[in-house]
């Protein structure tokens, strides 16, 4: 009888935890190579300026300093970092050089690299580099980027890079004939992923073998290997990027940053291993920022509350350069504004503006967090104007099961067509309302209890995932019967090893304990795309299914040789093969490891979706908000490990609350980043948001992959900003408080309440 594993769907305790809990994880700062030098990077302290000179002579005299690399050491042309996603030719003028190329455009831009015997000496040497910069006016806002004569890129002549246009139907006609329209302006602040482990690299050049090895890769190792090899003039096969344990990603880690080139290049230049680990202040001014969107948006409805059309213009402040995935957020703001609702007419634009701030990129739920804030606010405003219950208004306009697959707006200039794949949006919405007990709780709307005004809100969201193009899996059945899984999917700390072992165990019917998952070394499989866009489980997991079928064929072929029978006459029964009453164990079945490789290709997105509801209380005297209850209900198609999924859902919501209330990267008018430490970049702590609940469902399996899974993990965060703003508006409705800007800091809420109270008296 066949052994049927059912690890999928079980809350299996994670294999990773056995090392993490005992301090045995190996993160990049734990990697050391014999004879390594330490790199420290001289960064611009000026937001905008022309470099007149960089004098390293005093620094070079400091004992222990081995080299100071400046632009000239990189040859005539300083390498520029290409775009990984939406690589449009018209964006090439905005690509970042790995070292400032005559001009600095943000505080933190790399200018030189010091290599020394200890990190302390390298840091001391920074003070001895004499830098002369002619300061230029800094551009730090949308108004300045549009109106100031100063530009970041003189050849381009404008600070506007490109404009994304999302379109569907005929929005102008719909607006012309609509019963109701409303236009509002919104702002979402600049904040960032801020994972806990700082970035770092250890690079080693083996001159004899002509081979470069780099530890510290994350997320997109194969892509980064190609970029690095090209920039260094090496064959791709001469470069190996190795992913060790990774302390969180959330969209921003693992993109190709200047340091991804500088540290390996320094190792090659010096002929010795080089190690670099950033500090937190350095992280804040160098790793990708995110959000930072302003938007004028207009909504049209019929008088009976049918959504008709959206149109408007958004401006994305992308900072000084367009980085590898910097278009994703701005594009998504245009394309995904409609969310899980039926809008037949859309005309939305997002213009990407360069400013003298740190370049931006993706952060969990890119563009979706922003659009949900804008859209869900507009829905509550429309509901109030039309005197339609806000719950009922949402119900009326959610995409129905029968409408699937439902196309989202088309987009130019880089076609990223997608459609909502499947889902019962109404069922999830209704379940959320029921589990939250909206009917009872909504009686508290606007009520003052013990000095706090109570407010509620609900919002729905879609979570895109798993955009292809492919993923590889290689399975090796070792001679002793153990199975090793090699993957192109990467781990950023989400539990990949456990989840992939669960999928493998079910697909091969081998015991979970016999399976080892290896990921993230560019030598392990031919190609990989890694971990972004909630794709690891969907893409890597599906590749495992394909490979498992091939492995069974190999096992049958090996067994047929041993049994002396036809391949088709062999049956596999867990760890045994059988034929005609005889059995053999897999261990020792073959003299060589049985090895198979498979690639899963996919062009279609998965769209997980859900509804969240919140009950809050606002102290009008301080502007402080207590989250009394927060519930998220999400359908992800199929659940591999409910424990890891639930963990990501809760963690994601709390990140969303951080973005809604606390986190803000603040610049002054000179382009200086004022938030340089965790003392002023506030993140949620254990005290802030204790009452978070999450329900995850398997209602509608995804039709686009053999596992039926949808990418999940970002969803929790997506609607949080909108829901918090609507809940505050509900709580302070007697003062007509209408938040149009994030973060909802105590000072901002207090000021809105004050302004409302003054107007109420007047």
């Amino acid at each position, binding site marked *: 009888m066949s052994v049927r594993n059912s690890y999928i769907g079980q*809350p299996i*305790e*994670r294999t*990773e*935890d*056995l*090392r*993490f*809990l*005992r*301090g*045995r*994880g*190996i*993160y990049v*700062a*734990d990697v050391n190579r014999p004879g390594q030098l330490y790199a420290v990077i001289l960064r611009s302290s000026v937001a905008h300026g022309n470099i007149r000179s960089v004098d390293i002579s005093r620094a070079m005299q400091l004992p222990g300093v081995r080299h100071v690399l400046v632009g000239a050491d990189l040859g005539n042309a300083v390498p520029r970092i290409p775009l990984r996603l939406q690589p449009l030719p018209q964006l090439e003028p905005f690509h970042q050089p790995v070292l400032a190329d005559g001009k600095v455009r943000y505080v933190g831009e790399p200018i030189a690299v010091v290599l020394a015997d200890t990190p*302390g000496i390298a840091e001391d040497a920074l003070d001895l580099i004499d830098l002369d910069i002619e300061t230029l006016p800094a551009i730090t806002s949308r108004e300045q980027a549009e109106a100031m004569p100063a530009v970041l890129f003189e050849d381009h002549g404008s600070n506007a890079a490109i404009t994304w246009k999302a379109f569907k139907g005929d929005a102008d006609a719909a607006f012309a004939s609509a019963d109701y329209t409303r236009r509002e302006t919104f702002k979402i602040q600049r904040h960032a*992923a*801020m*994972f*806990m*482990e*700082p970035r770092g690299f250890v690079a080693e050049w083996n001159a004899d073998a002509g081979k470069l090895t780099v530890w510290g890769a994350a997320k997109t190792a194969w892509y980064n290997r190609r970029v690095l090899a090209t920039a260094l003039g090496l064959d791709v096969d001469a470069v190996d990027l190795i992913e060790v*344990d*990774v*302390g*969180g990603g*959330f969209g921003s880690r693992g993109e190709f940053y200047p340091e991804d080139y500088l540290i390996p290049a320094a190792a090659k230049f010096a002929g010795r291993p080089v190690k670099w*680990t950033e*500090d*937190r202040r350095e992280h804040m001014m160098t790793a990708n920022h995110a959000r930072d969107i302003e938007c004028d948006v207009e909504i049209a409805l019929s008088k009976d509350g049918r959504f008709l059309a959206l149109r408007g213009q958004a401006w994305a402040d992308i900072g000084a350069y367009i980085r590898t995935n910097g278009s994703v957020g701005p594009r998504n703001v245009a394309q995904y504004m409609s969310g899980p609702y039926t809008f037949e007419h859309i005309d939305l634009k997002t213009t990407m503006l360069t400013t003298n701030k740190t370049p931006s990129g993706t952060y969990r739920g890119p563009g979706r967090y922003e659009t949900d804030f804008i859209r869900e606010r507009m829905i509550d405003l429309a509901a109030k104007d039309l005197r339609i219950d806000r719950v009922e208004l949402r119900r009326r306009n959610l995409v129905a099961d029968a409408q699937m697959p439902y196309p989202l707006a088309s987009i130019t200039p880089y076609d990223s067509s997608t459609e909502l794949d499947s889902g019962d949006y109404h069922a999830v919405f209704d379940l959320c309302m029921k589990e939250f007990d909206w009917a009872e709780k909504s009686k508290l709307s606007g009520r003052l209890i013990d000095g706090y005004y109570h407010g509620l809100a609900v919002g729905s969201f879609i979570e895109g995932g798993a955009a292809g193009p492919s993923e590889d899996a290689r399975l090796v059945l070792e001679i002793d019967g153990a199975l090793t899984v090699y993957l192109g999917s990467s781990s*950023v*700390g*989400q*539990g990949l090893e456990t989840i992939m072992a669960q999928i493998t165990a079910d697909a091969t019917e081998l015991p979970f304990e016999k399976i080892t998952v290896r990921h993230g070394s560019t030598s392990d499989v031919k190609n990989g795309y890694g971990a972004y866009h909630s794709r690891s489980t969907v893409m890597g997991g599906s590749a495992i299914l394909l490979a498992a079928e091939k492995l069974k064929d190999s096992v049958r072929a090996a067994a047929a040789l041993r049994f002396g029978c036809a391949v088709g006459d062999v049956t596999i029964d867990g760890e045994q093969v059988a034929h005609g009453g005889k059995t053999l164990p897999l261990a020792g079945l073959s003299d060589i490891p049985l090895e198979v490789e498979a690639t899963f290709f996919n062009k279609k997105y998965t769209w997980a979706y859900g509804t969240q509801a919140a009950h809050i209380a606002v102290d009008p005297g301080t502007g402080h908000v207590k989250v009394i209850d927060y519930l998220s209900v999400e359908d992800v198609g199929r659940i591999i490990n409910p*424990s*890891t999924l*639930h*963990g*990501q859902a*809760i*963690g*994601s*919501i*709390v*990140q969303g609350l951080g973005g809604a209330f606390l986190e803000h990267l603040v610049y002054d008018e000179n382009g200086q980043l004022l938030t340089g*430490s*965790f*003392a002023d970049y506030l*993140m*949620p*702590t*254990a*005290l*802030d*948001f*204790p009452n*978070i609940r999450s329900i995850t469902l398997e209602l509608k399996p995804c039709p686009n992959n053999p596992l039926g899974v949808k990418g999940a993990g970002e969803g929790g965060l997506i609607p949080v900003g909108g829901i918090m703003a609507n809940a505050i508006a509900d709580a302070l409705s007697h003062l007509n408080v209408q938040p149009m800007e994030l973060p909802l800091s105590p000072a901002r809420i207090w000021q809105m309440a004050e302004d409302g109270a003054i107007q109420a008296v007047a």
Partner: protein
Amino acid sequence: MQIEFELNGATVGTSVEARTSLADCLRDNLGKTGTHLGCEHGVCGACTVLVNGEAVRACLMLAVQANGDKVVTVEGLSSDNLSPLQASFRKHHALQCGFCTPGFITTAHALLTAEPDADEERIRDVLSGNLCRCTGYVPIIEAVLDARKFYAVQKEKA
């Protein structure tokens, strides 16, 4: 400067610069890489170790200050098997990327050793000194609450 202290039960000696932090000394000189550096300005708590039984930020303490002290890192809290607190973290899925985890384990261990009856509010208050970006803290609090019984038994024995 030459210093000597007790690390996870064994006496160790090493040479450090006056400016070397305890965290760097533990990691670079003594190979205890379970002590993590997330911010190096005392806010994130990932580098928390026990010094004479107290939870201390190893990034804010100089190595020379530890001379003669008893220092315990996350590596010293268990041997081959997970400790009850570590097992509780695993059971409740109280970690994802695992980077902040050693700091939470050492902080919670210090708290529960002194106060095995700490209630949820007290646990949240103490752990609010450590940042976690992955979990949203809910499962961490559950794990620490669940581990209290083992510490209560230990305290009774003592």
